[in-house]
């Protein structure tokens, strides 16, 4: 960059003895890339602490991709915990990247992933610590470009004013193009405005300053950007090798293991699930590639576990083959294979036997307690599927199962809520029956219940979220219906879900609320002990924005604040799916049966890729 970097490393290092868990800030891990010769430096920010951010695969992929470009360095940044932030402010130490321990504000580009809504205040905290103006409109020529991406890019408006550009969709190819466009703009001595116009020309890139709110509730292009920004998608996932030499943390981070993505996208069509809608089509990686990359990642990382990740790993057409081959290669070692996301109807005895080992528990997500409601949400699993999976697992030696449910799904009745308790009772009975009599005392069923949050780009995007008092009433019904012995019941904080709902379908005015809440002290909202709904409600009130309206029902005929962003799934398909939900009619998965007409393949020029030829 033009301005010479002030050396902050000595100052930053002197803070380390003063803070908790300094391993968050030390760098020097195996696999960390140091490229002091690079002329174009980027900072990749995960808007939460190190131990959460290091589990993020998107960041690992982009780190790998960017550091492979000649002359480019990508360095990691996480949000310093409160003690470190206080020390940094007290000593005027700006936010620094881990690898070079140099100021983030001296980078050419700051890439920020937006994993979930409750990290929004953390983004502002990081920008402020970095000394970068919070809003795109206030940034000067010397400030870095702040570019967002990740799941929340599909409803970008609440954070739009804080970003110079936001990438919608998959980043493998797009980040390379964004960096190339920026470097060309620097070369051409383009000013900031011109640079942003050039970035808007990269497919999938949304430049918020080129759009304004329209009176009908949608967004109006001001010129320079497309009317609708279509998400980026990789046609051939197999052409991209996932990182096989990732950074290996010292700290005990979340998901501390090698991870290999085995497929992307999910066409099961659960109507509440944003990921299932926005990451289509389904692209399975080849079995040989998965085995090769898993072994390479273990060899390079030295990990004790490799996790085969995706939205629904048991759906991979060759999953049993892959797990069998890997287990054979790892036999007699202390290294294990795990699958993070299993569907109850795809988890059979074969997989249960192959995976037994170190697994402390098995996680399954029936989501709803009655068949009627599971049909409404298109979960397409039956109570018998669930009991079959539980029997298989407990016969194979498991003693714990964790079940995920939601309350507040559209059309839910008190009967559906009580049905969760009944279903859990049946699971307990099935688990005990499949367990030898002398071990039945150790059988445990964990039940985790969250509140449904309607998300953009799903068939339920027009639906209302439950009000807080109603959530509490239904929680009581559920508690009364739940068996006591052998069940460990936990709740997702209802007030945090309420806020998530208001932010998840927010418009551009919500940005003022986010900034005001951060200014009143909010940070780390996803950490239960740090979260304060009152602080948020006060900010909503002062900005004249009603969160209950944001979380409430939407007019299906009017444009939505995210109508200028396209996931490739057509709004007509979402409407049709909403109607089928009302009638409790299931829609099949197009990777098992015929095309459902969601629109992704024709509009984006892509198609499903099934490694084994067919599924099921």
């Amino acid at each position, binding site marked *: 960059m033009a301005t010479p970097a002030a050396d902050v490393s000595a100052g930053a*290092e002197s803070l*380390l*003895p003063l803070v908790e868990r*300094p*391993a968050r*800030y*030390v*760098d*020097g*891990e*195996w696999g960390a890339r140091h490229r002091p010769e690079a002329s174009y430096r980027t900072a990749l920010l995960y808007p939460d602490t190190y131990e959460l951010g290091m589990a993020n695969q998107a960041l690992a992929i982009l780190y790998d991709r960017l550091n492979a470009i000649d002359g480019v360095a990508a360095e990691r940044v996480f949000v310093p915990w409160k003690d470190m932030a206080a020390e940094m402010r007290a000593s005027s130490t700006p936010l620094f990247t881990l690898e070079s321990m140099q100021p983030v504000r001296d980078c050419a580009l700051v890439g920020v992933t937006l994993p979930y809504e409750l990290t929004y205040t953390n983004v502002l905290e990081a920008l402020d610590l970095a000394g970068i103006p919070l809003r795109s409109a206030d940034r000067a020529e010397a400030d870095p470009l702040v570019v967002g991406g990740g799941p929340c890019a599909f409803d970008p408006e609440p954070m739009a004013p804080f970003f110079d550009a936001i990438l919608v969709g998959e980043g493998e190819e797009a980040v390379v193009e964004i960096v190339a466009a920026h470097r060309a703009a620097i070369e051409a001595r383009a000013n900031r405005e011109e640079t942003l116009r050039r970035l808007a020309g990269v497919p999938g890139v949304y430049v918020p300053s080129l759009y304004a709110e329209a009176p009908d509730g949608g967004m109006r292009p001001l010129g320079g950007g497309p009317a609708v920004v279509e998400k980026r998608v990789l046609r051939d996932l197999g052409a991209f090798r996932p990182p096989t030499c990732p950074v*290996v943390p*010292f*700290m*005990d981070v979340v998901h501390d293991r090698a991870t290999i993505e085995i497929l992307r996208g999910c066409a099961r069509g659960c109507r509440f699930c944003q990921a299932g809608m926005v990451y289509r089509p389904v692209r399975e990686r080849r079995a040989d590639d998965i085995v090769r990359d898993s072994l390479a990642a*273990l*060899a*390079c*990382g*030295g*990990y*004790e576990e490799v996790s085969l990740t995706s939205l629904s790993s048991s759906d991979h057409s060759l999953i049993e083959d892959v797990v069998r081959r890997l287990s054979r290669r790892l036999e*007699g*070692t*202390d*290294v294990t294979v795990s699958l993070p996301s299993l569907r109850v109807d795809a988890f059979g005895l074969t997989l249960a036997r192959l995976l037994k*080992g*170190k697994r402390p528990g098995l996680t399954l997500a029936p989501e709803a307690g009655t068949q009627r409601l599971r049909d409404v949400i298109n979960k397409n699993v039956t109570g018998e599927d669930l009991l079959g999976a539980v029997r298989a697992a407990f016969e194979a030696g498991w003693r714990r199962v964790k079940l995920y449910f939601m309350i507040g799904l559209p059309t839910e009745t008190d009967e559906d809520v009580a049905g969760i308790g009944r279903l859990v009772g049946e699971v307990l009975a099935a688990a005990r029956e499949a367990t030898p009599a002398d071990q039945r005392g150790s059988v445990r069923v964990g039940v985790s219940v969250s509140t449904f949050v309607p998300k953009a780009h799903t068939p339920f995007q027009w639906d209302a979220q439950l009000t807080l008092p109603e959530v509490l009433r239904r929680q009581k019904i559920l508690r009364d219906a739940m068996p006591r012995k052998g069940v460990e019941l936990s709740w997702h904080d209802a007030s945090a879900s309420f806020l998530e709902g208001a932010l998840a379908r927010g418009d551009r005015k919500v940005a003022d609320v986010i900034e005001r809440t951060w200014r009143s002290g909010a940070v780390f909202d996803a950490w239960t002990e740090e979260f304060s709904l009152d602080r948020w409600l006060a900010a909503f009130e002062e900005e004249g924005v009603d969160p209950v309206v944001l979380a409430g029902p939407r007019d299906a005929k009017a444009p939505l604040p995210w109508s200028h962003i396209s996931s490739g799934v057509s709004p007509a398909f979402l409407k049709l799916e909403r109607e089928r939900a009302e009638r409790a009619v299931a829609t099949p998965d197009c990777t098992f049966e015929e095309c459902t007409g969601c629109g992704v393949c024709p509009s984006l020029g892509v198609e499903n890729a099934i490694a084994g030829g067919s599924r099921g």
Partner: protein
Amino acid sequence: MAEGFRLRVRYGKTGRLRHLSHLEVIRACERSVRRAGLPYSVTQGFSPKIKAAFGPALPVGTAGEREYYDVWLTSYVPARTVLERLAGASPAGLAPQAVSYAGGREPSLSAALTVARYRVLVASPATWPEEFGKVLAGVVGSGTLAVEHKGKTKVFDLARSLPEEPRVGSEDGFLVVEITTRIGQEGSLRPEALVHEALSSSPKPGSLIAVTRTDLLVEAGKEWLRPME
């Protein structure tokens, strides 16, 4: 399978990695062993683990110049080869320095290593090694030191805990305090506790900058030996 081959590794915990905890160091070293592709032994049982044993823990923030762990191999690999492979598979701040095979029946590192040497760096507006040495000698002469740790008070018998008189010198404008302590089951006196106590009763201000464990030793009669050469 029998015990296997007991390999002893000497390594450093240096630079910014002195801020790692003992558990973080253990995990990092075990991962280096796996990355190096060494034929390590695993423990018996339902969830096998790498068979390794570490020397006494270093606290977060304390560096180590000569630290040790033992790892068991299922087959013999020449020590030089092991060192090369480990060096190519370890983070720079935890680099291995030497490798040799140890006898299978020798006591564990944690039992054998009972003496530790430390170097404590103190920043002070003036260098006054002789004066500070006298203050330190006064503390040692008082016979005991009460140290509070996690809400509990532990009283150390300094005659037992300090087998040698601390020495004070100066280097680059810092006070350099060299302290030798006994470590083990009965509790290990942290050198910074002694330095803090001396600073609190000294006429001049000073602040502790860095603590480094410079050596770990085995007591053999009157001799102190390194666990490998």
